[in-house]
């Protein structure tokens, strides 16, 4: 009886641990950036930039833009919290001279920067918000 109880307890503990892992994974984001500034000069309220950040089954992260172009991203977390805790950032791979950085703060405020090269170096920056959501 005691042995059976121990086995049941162990199974319950494993299930509980697995559930915790599943909960920890469920931190995806839907982000909207309303205003875009080009190379630090002119800013305009164009069509909002929308993107999602999702964690895959392999514990990797992917950012997907509204046109369905998707990029793997590296997730970074604050090594030493300052005024707020929980700051995290996602950066794409440098590809075709282009790299994107998305930073999400604890209150949901977010910043997006893109660096690229066409006829010369260009950058743009956007301000917006991200909302955490649980994947379906």
């Amino acid at each position, binding site marked *: 009886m005691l042995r059976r109880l121990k086995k049941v307890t162990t199974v319950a503990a494993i299930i509980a641990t697995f559930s915790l892992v599943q909960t920890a994974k469920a931190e995806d984001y839907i982000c909207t950036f309303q205003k875009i500034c080009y190379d*630090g*000069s002119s800013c305009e309220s164009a069509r909002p930039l929308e993107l999602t950040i999702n964690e895959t089954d392999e514990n990797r992260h992917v950012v997907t833009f509204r046109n369905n172009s998707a990029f793997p991203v590296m997730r970074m977390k604050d090594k*030493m919290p300052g005024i707020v805790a929980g*700051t995290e*950032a996602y950066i794409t*791979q440098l590809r075709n001279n282009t790299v994107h*950085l998305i930073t999400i703060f604890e209150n949901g*405020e977010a910043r997006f920067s893109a660096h690229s090269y066409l006829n010369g170096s260009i950058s743009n920056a956007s301000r917006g918000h991200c909302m955490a959501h649980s994947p379906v």
Partner: protein
Amino acid sequence: MGKFWIISATFSVFGMANVLAAENTDSGHSCSFPTRCYEESECQNDENFSVLIDEQDGKRPQINLPKSSIPAIRQLDINNPDTMNTISYVSDIFLNTLHLITIHEDGSARMSSHSFSDAAFTIESVGFCVPK
């Protein structure tokens, strides 16, 4: 410039192959960003804002700002061999702040700093870098 080699490695955090580079001598970039733009306000000119990027064998690159030094990750362009000279550095996040510096083949460079004070803000910087 010293002897240079490239280490191809699996950039596991990305989940695909990437190329990291290292040099066997102290190297890096010396950058100047005379134009700095805070959020959506007008840009300011500050000729003295310089950033040093140090790279030493076996160590992570360091982004040296006027008042702090932050470890960084370096990326080379994975897609286009013709543009392998584009380099990007992203710092660790410390005190709600991180920096992205991208240097192109012609030396032109962009730096984005994301941070949080009373609210989130961005400083976008325009400048150039030269190899140390």
